[in-house]
């Protein structure tokens, strides 16, 4: 009997590697006992493996390379260095985070909408040059209001407005 399908050849390859499930391996072994073609294929696979294994012997590692690899690390010393490096890295990351936050805050306050001056600030500017006649005084011809009184009234009005806005 000839077993020529690719699926069976693939099975032979896995069987040769000892990677075929046991039930399939048993079935294949029964087949191999009566199929010269498949038995010959298996012999080729084994010959190929012997040939490839022999190539391993050629690749001797140069002694100086082995020495270099052995000396490439000193786990005790390098562990300390690695830990210091990690700590420095963490510190640098923390500093970067703080700086970024500060820069972002500065940028957002600079880029945000301009704050409206409070009423008392306007009054302070208006009264800086001396007594001012209020609108009511202008209409009635009444006396000028002293700047400190105007300023106190404005502050009271502002603070009562703020308190009223609180929940």
């Amino acid at each position, binding site marked *: 009997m000839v077993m020529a399908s690719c699926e069976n050849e693939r099975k032979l390859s*896995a069987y040769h*590697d000892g990677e075929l499930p046991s039930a399939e391996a048993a079935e294949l072994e029964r087949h191999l006992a009566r199929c010269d073609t498949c038995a010959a294929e298996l012999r080729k696979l084994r010959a*190929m493996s012997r*040939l490839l294994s*022999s*190539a391993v012997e050629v690749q001797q590692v140069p002694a100086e390379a082995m020495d270099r690899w052995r000396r*490439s*690390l*000193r*786990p005790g010393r390098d562990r300390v260095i690695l830990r210091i490096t990690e700590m420095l890295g963490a510190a640098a990351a923390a500093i970067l985070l703080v700086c970024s936050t500060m820069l972002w805050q500065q940028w957002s306050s600079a880029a945000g909408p301009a704050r409206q001056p409070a009423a008392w600030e306007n009054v302070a500017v208006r009264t800086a040059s001396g007594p001012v006649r209020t609108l009511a005084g202008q209409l009635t011809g009444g006396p000028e209001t002293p700047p400190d009184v105007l300023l106190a009234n404005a502050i009271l009005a502002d603070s009562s407005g703020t308190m009223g806005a609180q929940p």
Partner: protein
Amino acid sequence: MAQDALYGDEPDSDMELVRRVRKGDEAAFRRVVDIHGPRLYLLAMSMLGNREDAQDVVQETFVGAFRGLRGFQERSTVKTWLTRILMNNVADLRRRRHLRKTLPFDEAAEQLGASPARRVTETGRADMRMDIAAVVGRLPEEHRTVIVLREMQGMTYEEIAAALGVPRGTVESRLFRARQKLKEILGDYLA
């Protein structure tokens, strides 16, 4: 496995060695190098075809493995873990240098004007071994890798799959196709 005997690989003691390396044991690190260095070098040579590059990549693998020791969860074997790091380092080196995936000795074999199979039968034993390296070098990289890991390093399909980050079925089909190609190249020599 014959290859395991050759390289003195013992998975249980491997884990123990790695635990000792974690604690800063230098002798344990040297032992890991002795056990895995030769097979990693063979793999690097088969991938790069150049001694200096292969040696550098193996060194980077050990250094990288140590630095990543905390990340090693012991879910895979040390052999698989190191192989995976090596494969990544080979890929990095290629990217840095824009290296081709074919090997220099592939060109050399072709320039000699004879098929590797003929040269195998006509030359002495040492040359024959070199020609086997040339034959393997003629395979596409994904086939060459599985052949080296399976045939020369005795890794199981599961180990190869874990080292390459591909499904087990992919390993099986790549091996099958690689062997088909090798049979064509080696021809009557296998009869």
